[in-house]
């Protein structure tokens, strides 16, 4: 009841202020009238009665005001009045207002967007129970780099480890689903049977794999994702126990994963089947499997690493090893979360740093703007203090104004953040892990709002405190000598701003140079006007190696007859495509005693003509040709680095080399090195053999087509040509070699684009800050400059004075920034390519850029100052 009255009466008062005022006036007026009448009745003269009544009531105005100011709605009124006043003031200075709001929006927006994007990737744990117990295990390669492991290594570790509850290996799988509807190429994974146990997520329907599913001769079973189950099988629970046809083979569906299951190891995977490797098979020794494990409860990462190291260093007869999987460099154990984010971590941390830097720059800039503005408003504040505005009132006004500004800036910032997150997601490279968890979340929103209020309060205190000081000496309004007191503080802010901007600019400059170097990097093959696509011989009809060989031969012929095709070739591996497998190498007789140390090599089974089609140059001997068939002498061509590292100081031609578990090949030629994994990584060795002599294992091949015309127009005709041979075979991963090249730099480019945006923002803010500070100080010193001019200072001297005044803090800031940048850029080392973190060219260019910006920012107000008429400031007084 009473609350209801409070609210309704208050709202009524707010809605109709004049009526509320009238009520108060009438009530007091009536009281006065009654009092007067009362005194009259007691026999006073009318005059005396009125006076007595007045006396009784005290000040009529005060009483009315007291009555009028009752109620919560009056506090609202007061705040509204402050806000109105603030808005009016800000409208009077549109330049200042717009710059301040944009500055705040940039700072708050950028930092919120980055926090939103980076926070979850780096810090949110993986979506599995006890996710911190899931580890990634890698073999260690020749250069200490992590290498995929072999099935037999996993088999040995699984049997011998005591640190893990479950240990699983997996590889990509791309089966073709056929049946009642059109064939569909699916993304899946072949996994050892404990895979889902390691992740700790079991199927929602049906059962998990067990050990009997994962044996050489076992019947095919498959677990489906919720998405695939709904899309292809109408979410029919009776799917469990039914058969599906995948790449012409029959698989029994045994389970369906829960809807919320997120597979961070292969986000696109929609079905899983056991590996079904046997230890005796050749592929069981191939380095092409990734390994994850779930630690026993209470076991630590270090404990597990020690356990695996002990196993690696202590072979037992039950588990014989081969030279290329001898585990003599040990095994690496990291948490899965760290493993997934390792590649992106430096870039993401750099982003966080850049965002923080930009926020600090924005705050410095706004503080600077507010100080300059306050200096301009000193007269106004002094006048108001003289007219009786209390210190509290002035403080409230100042704080309201800056909170109002911060609120507007914050709102614009949040809008910018929402937009920024979208842009970040759109720009980010697909390899960026856990992109699905990125989004503007509420905690980040709260963070942004908190930040806004904090910035508002902190920035409000500066002019507010100055205003309070002014109030103490309020009897001397408009004294100009106090203007100087803000000078050193502002010069310091300029120093800070220039220094911070320099750090940010140097960082982005270094990334830009790295990018240029990287793009100028020769990939070792010619990417121009070349098209690549993956084709395969899948299904039982190609179980016979000869059938597959015939199929690929026919495909090549069909593609070569397509108009516009200048050359076509097949290869088992495509450089820069992301799925490459390492093989062990044995040279017989050995040239080096320590040939195991040289690590694995990439094995390319290619059709003759591969080198010509790819533009890979011959260095020595001969290329593979059509004569190198099944019935001929097995021959291989190796890369320059292969020859240099494994066959030092000898003629590589004529040497015998085994790749994996193959028969020895005779080396007949040496070709140029090719960037295989990425443009940035130093080349690994490569050995090339013909498809014919490579055996039957290569059923998924990349087709490379060179054309003299338009490369993208060709894709469809080539695909039709493949289908003209067998319409049931999928053709996937169609891409130009150019796009593979540029994808290889995607992560760096992403970081670069973001850093460029930051650097541009920092440069803008620094320029705006310098200009604002200098033009403000010139405006304040108009009188002094006029006096100087009147005393005979030439325009040139005045120009020099102003420029000197602006450039001094700039130069100091550049000095401080250089030190800061030298310390900061070391953190970027992992992201730089062929560029020193102290690259002098970058540092010089950034310093020059900042000097030019500062000079321009000085020149405009200086030019204005030089033209001040000696008499004008006197008139202004």
């Amino acid at each position: 009841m009473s609350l209801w009255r409070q609210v309704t009466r208050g709202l009524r008062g707010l809605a109709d202020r004049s009526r509320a005022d009238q009520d108060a006036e009438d009530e007091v007026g009536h009281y006065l009238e009654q009092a007067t009448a009362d005194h009259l009745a007691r026999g006073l003269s009318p005059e005396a009665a009125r006076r007595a009544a007045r006396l009784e009531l005290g000040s009529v105005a005060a009483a009315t005001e007291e009555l009028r100011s009752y109620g919560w709605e009056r506090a609202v009124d007061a705040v509204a009045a402050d806000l109105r006043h603030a808005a009016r003031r800000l409208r009077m200075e549109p330049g200042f207002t717009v710059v301040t709001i944009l500055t705040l929006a940039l700072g708050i927006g950028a930092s919120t967007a980055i926090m939103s994007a980076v926070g979850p990737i780096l810090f949110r744990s993986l979506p599995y129970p006890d996710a911190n117990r899931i580890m990634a295990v890698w073999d260690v390669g020749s250069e200490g780099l992590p290498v995929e492991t072999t099935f037999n290594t996993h088999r040995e570790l699984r049997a011998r480890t005591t640190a893990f509850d479950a240990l699983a290996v997996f590889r990509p799988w791309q089966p073709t689903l056929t049946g009642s509807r059109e064939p569909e190429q699916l993304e899946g994974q072949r996994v050892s049977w404990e895979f889902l146990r390691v992740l700790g997520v079991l199927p929602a329907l049906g059962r998990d794999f067990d050990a009997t599913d994962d044996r050489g001769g076992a019947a095919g079973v498959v677990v489906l994702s919720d998405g695939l189950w709904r899309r292809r099988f109408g979410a029919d629970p009776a799917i469990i126990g039914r058969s599906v046809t995948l790449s012409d083979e029959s698989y029994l569906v045994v389970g369906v994963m829960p809807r919320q299951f997120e597979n961070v190891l292969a986000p696109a995977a929609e079905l899983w089947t056991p590996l079904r490797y046997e230890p005796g098979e050749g592929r069981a020794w191939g380095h092409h499997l990734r390994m994850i494990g779930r630690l026993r409860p209470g076991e630590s990462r270090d404990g597990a690493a020690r356990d695996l190291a002990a196993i690696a260093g202590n072979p037992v007869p039950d588990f014989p090893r081969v030279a290329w999987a001898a585990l003599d460099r040990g095994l690496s154990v990291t948490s899965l979360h760290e493993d997934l984010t390792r590649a992106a971590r430096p870039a993401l941390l750099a982003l966080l740093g850049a965002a923080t830097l930009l926020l600090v720059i924005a705050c410095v800039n706004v503080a600077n703007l507010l100080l300059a503005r306050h200096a301009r408003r000193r007269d106004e504040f002094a006048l108001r203090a003289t007219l009786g505005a209390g210190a509290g009132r002035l403080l409230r006004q100042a704080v309201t104004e800056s909170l109002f500004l911060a609120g507007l800036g914050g709102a614009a910032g949040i809008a910018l953040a929402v937009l920024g997150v979208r842009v970040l997601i759109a720009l980010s490279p697909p390899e960026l892990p856990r992109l699905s968890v990125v989004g503007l979340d509420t905690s980040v929103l709260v963070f942004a709002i908190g930040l806004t209020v904090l910035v508002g309060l902190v920035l409000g205190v500066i002019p507010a405190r100055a205003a309070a000081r002014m109030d103490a000496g309020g009897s001397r309004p408009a004294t100009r000598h106090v203007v100087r007191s803000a000078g050193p503080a502002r010069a310091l802010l300029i120093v800070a701003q220039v220094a911070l901007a320099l750090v940010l600019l140097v960082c982005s400059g270094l990334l830009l140079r790295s990018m240029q170097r990287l793009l100028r990097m020769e990939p070792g093959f010619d990417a121009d006007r070349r098209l690549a696509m993956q084709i395969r011989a899948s299904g039982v009809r190609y179980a016979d190696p000869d059938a597959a060989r015939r199929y690929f031969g026919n495909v090549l012929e069909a593609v070569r007859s397509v108009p516009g095709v200048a050359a076509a070739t097949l290869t088992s591996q495509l450089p820069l495509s992301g799925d490459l497998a390492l093989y062990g190498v044995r040279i017989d007789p050995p040239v080096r005693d320590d040939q195991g140390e040289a690590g694995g090599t990439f094995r390319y089974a290619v059709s003759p003509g591969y080198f010509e089609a790819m533009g890979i140059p011959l260095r020595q001997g001969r290329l593979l040709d059509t004569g190198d068939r099944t019935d001929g002498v097995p021959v291989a061509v190796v890369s320059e680095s292969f020859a240099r590292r494994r066959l030092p100081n000898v003629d590589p031609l004529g040497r015998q080399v085994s790749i994996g578990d193959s028969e020895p090949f005779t080396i007949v030629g040496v070709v140029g090195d090719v960037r295989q994994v990425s443009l940035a990584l130093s080349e690994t060795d490569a050995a090339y053999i013909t498809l014919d002599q490579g055996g039957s294992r290569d059923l998924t091949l990349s087709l490379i087509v060179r054309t003299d015309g338009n490369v993208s127009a060709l894709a469809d005709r080539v695909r039709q040509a493949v289908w003209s041979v067998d319409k049931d075979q999928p053709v996937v991963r169609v891409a130009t070699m150019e796009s593979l090249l540029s994808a290889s730099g995607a992560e760096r480019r992403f970081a670069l684009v973001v850093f460029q945006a930051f650097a541009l923002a920092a440069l803008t803010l620094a320029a705006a800050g310098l200009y604002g500070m200098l033009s403000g100080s010139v405006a304040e010193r108009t009188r002094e400059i006029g006096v100087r001019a009147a005393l005979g200072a030439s325009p040139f001297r005045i120009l020099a004075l102003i420029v000197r005044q602006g450039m001094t803090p700039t130069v100091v800031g550049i000095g401080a920034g250089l030190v800061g940048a030298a310390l900061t850029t070391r953190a970027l080392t992992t992201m730089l390519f062929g560029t020193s973190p102290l690259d002098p060219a970058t540092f010089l260019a950034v310093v020059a850029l900042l000097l030019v910006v500062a000079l321009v920012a000085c020149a405009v107000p200086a030019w204005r100052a030089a033209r001040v008429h000696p008499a004008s400031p006197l008139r202004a007084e």
Partner: protein
Amino acid sequence: MTEPNTDVIQGTLDMLILKTLSLTPMHGFGIARRIEQISRSVFKVNPGSLLVALQRLERAGWLDAEWRRTDHGRRARFYSLTRAGHKQLDLETADWTRRVSAVARLLKAEG
């Protein structure tokens, strides 16, 4: 030497207003005079405080307020007690009586 203190005892103004209005509805000035008369000028009500208090009690739902025209054509605000106001008056009276008798006992007590 000093004039006698005519301030209303702190915290009792609401009760005095409620009591006064429990007899008959009246306007602000009437309430002030009535309190003065009945207390035989021991209490003089400050008009400013009285009018604000009336506003507050009205907001609290203990009084109803109504604008009427006086004979002189002026708008005057007449206040009357609501049911909630009656209850509140009872509460405050009981509370006051309890406290006054406690004070009286304390003052009478010896040694």
